[in-house]
């Protein structure tokens, strides 16, 4: 689908990377300022890379060596920014139809009625953009881009300017776009939850480089992504199924493999698959299960790796999935831990946090 390899310099900032997206919906994840937006602008044709190529469905959009550089209006790549500006001199209706009217009818994939219904913006059609709320504006911007029938929809932090309540209102619309319109999408965000809500397939970027891509769990466990994962508290990520809620005790029980874990109470319906994350520093290790302790989760496993990083040790414990525990050198010595030892991983229920739903 999308295949690129490019190099782009802007002042002292350099963007460099390869990316091949095979999945209809993919995420691009990375901290703020890592070059995600620049990459999207290059794909849309708004910023020109110095070298490399960008192919979409086998058609070259850009190729420095062959001197191909399709202008943005001929790429048919839709771009929705964070806080997308609507045309202030046009009504919502004419904003929506701006790209639609420029397209030969044979190339139109969706009808205005379909998009208006999907995004629930029928009551806004005669308003001016300045009379819309942030959430309404973003839905109109999305609709305007959808009606231009892009071959690829780029979403650049489309929810970043909205408050938490509005995000929860817009995310379902994005899912409907994914499921009902079947439009290829690349969703860019520094919030992993938003990406995971739409797709488990993602690429990870940091400081202008694409560090890796693939299914979330595989990517996040790659060694060279560990530093980024650590800074984001994503060293340990499990995909689990919600089994039951116990409001009385304030616990939700989830399952992975044959283990059960106790987590903080969540609102997810039982049976939902979700991702949960835990910092490596929040994992304690013990030789034996410990009674009389507040820690709710004690999972047996085998030490498969001990790596010294600066003043601490990163222990990898196989409990069915690899769990990383960050402990001091002293603790390793006191316990006499060796590779191959059997240990119990201790997780406080409240140290886990939910990432999103599949």
């Amino acid at each position, binding site marked *: 689908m999308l295949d690129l390899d490019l190099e782009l310099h802007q002042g002292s900032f350099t963007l460099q990377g390869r990316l091949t997206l095979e999945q209809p919906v993919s995420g691009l994840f990375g901290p703020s300022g890592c070059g995600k937006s620049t990459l999207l602008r290059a794909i*849309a*044709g*708004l910023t020109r890379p110095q070298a490399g190529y960008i192919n979409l469905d086998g058609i070259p959009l850009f190729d420095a060596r062959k001197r191909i550089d399709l*202008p*943005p*209006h001929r*790429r*048919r*790549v*839709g*771009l929705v*920014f964070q806080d*997308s*500006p609507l*045309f*202030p*001199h046009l009504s919502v209706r004419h904003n929506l139809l*701006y*790209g639609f009217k*420029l*397209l030969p009818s044979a190339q139109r994939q969706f009808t205005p009625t379909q998009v208006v219904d999907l995004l629930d913006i029928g009551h806004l059609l005669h308003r*001016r*953009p*300045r009379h819309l709320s942030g959430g309404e504006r973003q839905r109109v*911007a999305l609709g*305007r*881009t959808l009606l*231009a029938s892009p071959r690829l929809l780029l979403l650049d932090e489309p929810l970043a300017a909205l408050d938490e309540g509005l995000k929860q209102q817009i995310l379902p619309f994005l899912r409907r776009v994914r499921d009902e319109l079947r439009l290829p999408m690349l969703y860019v965000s520094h919030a992993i939850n938003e990406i995971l809500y739409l797709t488990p397939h993602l690429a990870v970027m940091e400081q202008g480089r694409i560090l890796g891509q693939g299914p979330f769990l595989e990517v996040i466990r790659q060694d060279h992504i560990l530093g980024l994962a650590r800074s984001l508290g994503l060293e340990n990520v499990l995909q689990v199924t919600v089994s039951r809620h116990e409001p009385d005790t304030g616990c939700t029980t989830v399952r992975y493999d044959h283990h059960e874990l106790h987590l903080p109470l969540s609102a997810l319906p039982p049976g939902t698959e979700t991702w949960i994350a835990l910092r490596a520093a929040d994992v304690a290790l013990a030789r034996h299960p410990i009674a009389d302790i507040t820690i709710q989760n004690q999972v047996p496993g085998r030490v498969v790796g001990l790596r010294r990083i600066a003043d601490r040790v990163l222990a990898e414990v196989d409990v069915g999935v690899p769990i990383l525990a960050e402990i001091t050198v002293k603790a390793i010595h006191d316990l006499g831990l060796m590779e191959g030892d059997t240990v119990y991983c201790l997780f406080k229920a409240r140290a886990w946090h939910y990432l999103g739903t599949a």
Partner: protein
Amino acid sequence: MWPSLQPTPEELTALWLSLKIGLWCTALIAVPGIVTGWLLARIRFPGKALVDGLVHLPLVLPPVVPGYLLLLLLGRQGPIGRWLYETWGIALAFTWQGAVVASALMAFPLMVRAVRLAVTLVEPRLEEAARTLGAGPLRVWLTVTVPLSLPGILTGLVLAFARSLGEFGATVTFVGNVAGETRTLPLAIYTYTQIPGGDGPALRLVVISILLALAALWISELGARRVERMLGNRRT
């Protein structure tokens, strides 16, 4: 002692002449002014500083200087003026068309400055959004850049018209002070102040000038309100 308010035919001629020259001048520089203002605001090209300087020169020179240069270039003996006359039979020196050229030259920088400022204020992201929606550069210009710059364009046109009404130095140098042909309101007022008993007509023309200026301001305010409504900046 207090003069009659009834203008003489000669004074009315000066009024209509001023209006005619002002409107022609405004019409003449509208499109080039929009294009130049946009170029200076958005496009980087070699020699931009030179173009910028040349456009603004009439604003900072004594008006007599551009007027005299026009006479040298476009006068019957000037290189361009002779060619215009011999090839097309067009004479600019000492004709009202020449007055249009003189005031257009003087008004052009005001128009360009107003447009340039307005274009600078148009959010580039709007133009980028239009491009990713499938609009080519010309369409983006016509459907986004120009409509959103309309308040500045309108201001520029009003300033240009006002500048043309007030034009004196370049006009008198290039096309002289020919009654019925190039004697606009300011030239007529000046002429009357130079002859005995001219105070009455001069005062009447002063009143007319003030009324004309107020009318122009009023019309431009109406236009500005319409434009603001169109741009959605003001509640209807």
